[in-house]
């Protein structure tokens, strides 16, 4: 295991992990710091992390956990909302609308979309990460995509 190997992993995964964390529902500004910290944590115990099913999913999960800790510490009266805050408008554009639509999905659908598309995990690994059957992954994904197509159908006519 080398720094080069980790660096390659980081460069190839950082943007995907950030998008996945935001899709999960994290606020973009906190997501950047939480994901960066999760990558640092991954490097600090890389011999263990590199051997898990999906190091990318490990990073996102670690970032989410850190964010939940942050949230509980700073806003003790609240729990992580099922419906995340709206993304800042300075991210306007189709990517913004797409991510916003994902964030409006129910939590489980959000997670499946984030893992399958933003992290590019296969259905098996996604199921393993979420503790659900592969068939449940497919069914959840089907519902999520259907919802997204409906929500984005009128957005700049980009969807088939």
């Amino acid at each position, binding site marked *: 295991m080398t720094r080069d190997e980790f660096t390659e992993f980081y460069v190839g995964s*950082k943007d995907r992990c*950030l998008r996945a964390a935001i899709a999960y529902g994290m606020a973009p500004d906190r997501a950047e710091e939480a994901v960066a910290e999760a990558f*640092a944590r991954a490097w600090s115990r890389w011999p263990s992390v590199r051997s898990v099913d999906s190091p990318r999913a490990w990073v996102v999960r670690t970032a989410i956990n850190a964010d939940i800790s942050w949230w509980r510490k700073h806003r003790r009266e609240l729990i992580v909302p099922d419906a995340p805050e709206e993304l800042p408008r300075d991210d306007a554009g189709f*990517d913004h609308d797409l*991510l916003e639509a994902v964030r409006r999905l129910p939590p489980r659908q959000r997670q499946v979309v984030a893992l399958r598309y933003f992290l590019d995990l296969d259905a098996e690994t996604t199921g393993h990460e979420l503790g659900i059957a592969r068939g449940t992954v497919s069914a959840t994904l089907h519902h999520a995509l259907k919802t997204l197509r409906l929500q984005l159908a009128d957005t700049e006519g980009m969807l*088939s």
Partner: protein
Amino acid sequence: MNDIETLLRTSSRQTLDLPAAEILRRGDRMRRRRRTGKVAAAVAAFSVAGVMAYVAIPDRLIDSDVATPAPEKHPVDWSGEPTNLTPEELDELSDRCLESAWQELRFEYDTGRKLVPEADNLVDPDDVERIPAGTWPFLAEKRGATTKAIFDGTDYGVTCSATASTLTSVSGHHLASASGTPIVWDAFEQTGPWEHFSRGSGGDMSEFILPLPEELNVTKVVFTLRGKDIPATVVNDMAVAWTENLGNVASASFRAYDADGKLVHDEAPEPPTVEWTETAEGIRVTRSLGNETVESAWFWVGEQRFDATITEANVAVALIPTGTLTTDQLDRLQIQGLSPEGLSMMGCTGGPCGP
């Protein structure tokens, strides 16, 4: 027209722009923080041909810029000259030393965990960066029947030696017996910069290793033992020396100089020793007490005790009738004493303190 799945996969607006170097730096710092709580008992035994000494490697060796050394391409010997080992021998040393050290690291953890399940001072092999296979040592030398090497890694180092036996001498190949010992990292902040000075004697050699604090920019070190200077080689932020067996090296000290030649660490004064001489009245035994205030003092060997008087020059003196002790016993005489507060003059850390 794009399908939603393609768009999800190619979405690219959000990017994490932190450079990898910053992530590595933060991760290194986290690892160091974790390790800090472990160090006290994690310092690995460093064996010098059967004599145990202790050594740990300073924190600055695991700073991100130097944390994972590239495989050493130009190992040197204990004189700082290019190693006298061939690339094939270095490869073999690497294979054998790194693997055996890794096995020992695991063994120490498994054994320690079994003995003390709640111990928090063990180094978990799953939590350290294994030195990559094929890494060459930064120090390697074949001298007579012995080959020695030292490897550097992110979380631990490895000392390794192989000695030709009768069997291997016949075959002309002794590296097969090479065995590595892990050295676990430690932090200078916890220990002070000079507290990892390691020395030991065994077989036909003595060895000295001194990790150097980076901030002092030490470029020259001289080890000292009983008034004799032993020049060190400074390599990879360590000062090292490998000499013939010098006997007991526990009292060794060192002088360290920075790049401007300024003395940044002076040798500790050699502790006074017990001396004896034959006189007409008997064997006169003396030992300077230096600046110590001692109310009573005596010399002892085994179960025998000889009370001393303390002179105006603060020297303990005893007169032992000739023939009472053998020469060997005289050579082994030690001093003990009590301060006015009743404290023992010499520590009693595990050894006898005298009758």
